[in-house]
């Protein structure tokens, strides 16, 4: 089935939302854990605001309704895989209806650090059915662009070890213990997550970016591509640049 145009629903209308009222831009940054998404999101936000766009940035489990419940549930030791998926989808629906849609109505640029694709990939990595997940999250809006920061598992390992310095329980899929310890479990779980994202890549028209490149270079690629979503503004930026020069 072909993907509908931006700001239409994938396959299920959200009660009370008329896509015709939406006018902003919806930009998704996707990719596995520790791949450098949040760095890019904050750079993009500053850049877009400088260009005069109002920006909303949002991300998984940050919603007013379910954000705290998810954090609490992850502190305990009883959160099952289906429950986790459902909880995250609840949070996503809450942010979509109460943050993203109102911002789009008002003409904001919405940058979201992950979208339904990560939720689906995690579910698939935990053995859930891809078709079920797709329909479950079918009320999501089609973004203007999905940037997939792609890295292989060795790169992620080095980011985790050199960066935070320790493996995270959930990012290692330790709830299902894919291996005898955090390292082995991380390798197997993240391999599954990346495989699931790769499989979605074509269908959902991801724009893939090699995340092993330096952050500045990735940012320039994102700028170039996102700039094309705003044809009029780009000439402004050019003018300003040449004036400076």
């Amino acid at each position, binding site marked *: 089935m072909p993907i509908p145009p931006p700001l239409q629903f994938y396959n299920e209308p959200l009660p009370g939302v008329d896509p015709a009222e939406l006018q902003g831009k919806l930009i998704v940054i996707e990719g596995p854990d520790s791949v450098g998404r949040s760095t890019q999101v904050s750079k993009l936000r500053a850049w877009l605001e400088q260009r005069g766009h109002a920006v909303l940035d949002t991300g998984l489990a940050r919603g007013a309704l379910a954000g705290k*419940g998810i954090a609490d549930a992850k502190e305990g030791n009883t959160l*099952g895989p289906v*429950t986790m998926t*459902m909880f995250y989808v609840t949070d996503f629906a809450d942010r979509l209806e*109460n943050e993203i849609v109102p911002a789009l109505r008002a003409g904001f640029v919405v940058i979201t650090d992950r979208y339904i694709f990560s939720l689906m990939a995690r579910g698939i990595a935990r053995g859930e059915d891809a078709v079920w997940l797709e329909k479950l999250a079918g009320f999501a809006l089609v973004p203007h662009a999905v940037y997939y920061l792609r890295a292989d598992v060795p790169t992620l390992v080095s980011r985790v070890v050199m960066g935070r310095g320790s493996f995270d329980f959930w990012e290692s899929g330790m709830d299902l213990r894919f291996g005898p310890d955090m390292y082995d479990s991380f390798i197997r779980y993240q391999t599954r997550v990346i495989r699931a994202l790769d499989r979605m890549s074509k269908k959902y028209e991801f724009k893939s970016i090699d995340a092993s490149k330096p952050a500045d270079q990735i940012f320039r690629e994102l700028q170039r591509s996102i700039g094309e979503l705003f044809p009029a503004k780009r000439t402004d930026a050019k003018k300003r640049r040449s004036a400076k020069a």
Partner: protein
Amino acid sequence: MALALMPILTPNRFKGKLIVVEGIDGSGKSTQLSLLAQWLRSQGLAVAFSEWNSSPLVRDTTRRGKKKQMFTPTTFSLIHATDFADRQERYIMPMLKAGAIVCADRFAYTAFARDVVRGVSPKWVRNVYRFAIQPNLAFYFRVPLEVALGRILGGRDSIKYYEAGMDLNLSRRIEESFRLFQGRILEEYDAMTQEMGFHVIDATGSIEDQQAQMREVVMQKLSDAIATGQILQDERAYRANTAAAPVL
């Protein structure tokens, strides 16, 4: 139409059995289910009990949403599905695996009726619950709206905002909203009775009659599983009870 909407729940491949009750508020289903559970226990059978909207993991989130009236039809539906997922993963499934008879007060059918009245699509909400284990028996306590309302409005102190469907703006008066909301839910239950294969119990009958009907249906359905020892049971209690008095 009915076929197209047929939910694909997850088949129960476990030793235990899942019995659920459905019906509008005031239909008496909870009373009947607790009588049934008590009786099954007295027969020496392993019984587990799970109630709609009771997961400790999800409780604070549901409470926050209700208190601040943050729910939309979609998030209301999803948080209840999260609640159910938690109860199924952490309690219902392990109990079924162990060979218990799991009695559930409300099941996905509540969502199929109530959330659809709230405005989510029937197809979508049926997919949401595809992970839910298919009940071995589903009782629907059918009762005319006025009878149920008489039981509820007489006996309870106050109806809450979401219970009355106040979020649907059916009426500004809470009792009137409750009446209209429950009426629509009743229509949804009636409409899905065949699709879901409900055992309909006339909930206007006496409590004793309804309970006798329920026990008969349950024994018909479970006698093999009990006789073969598939259901976890205390042999002595079972023999003592069945010897002392006839089952029905």
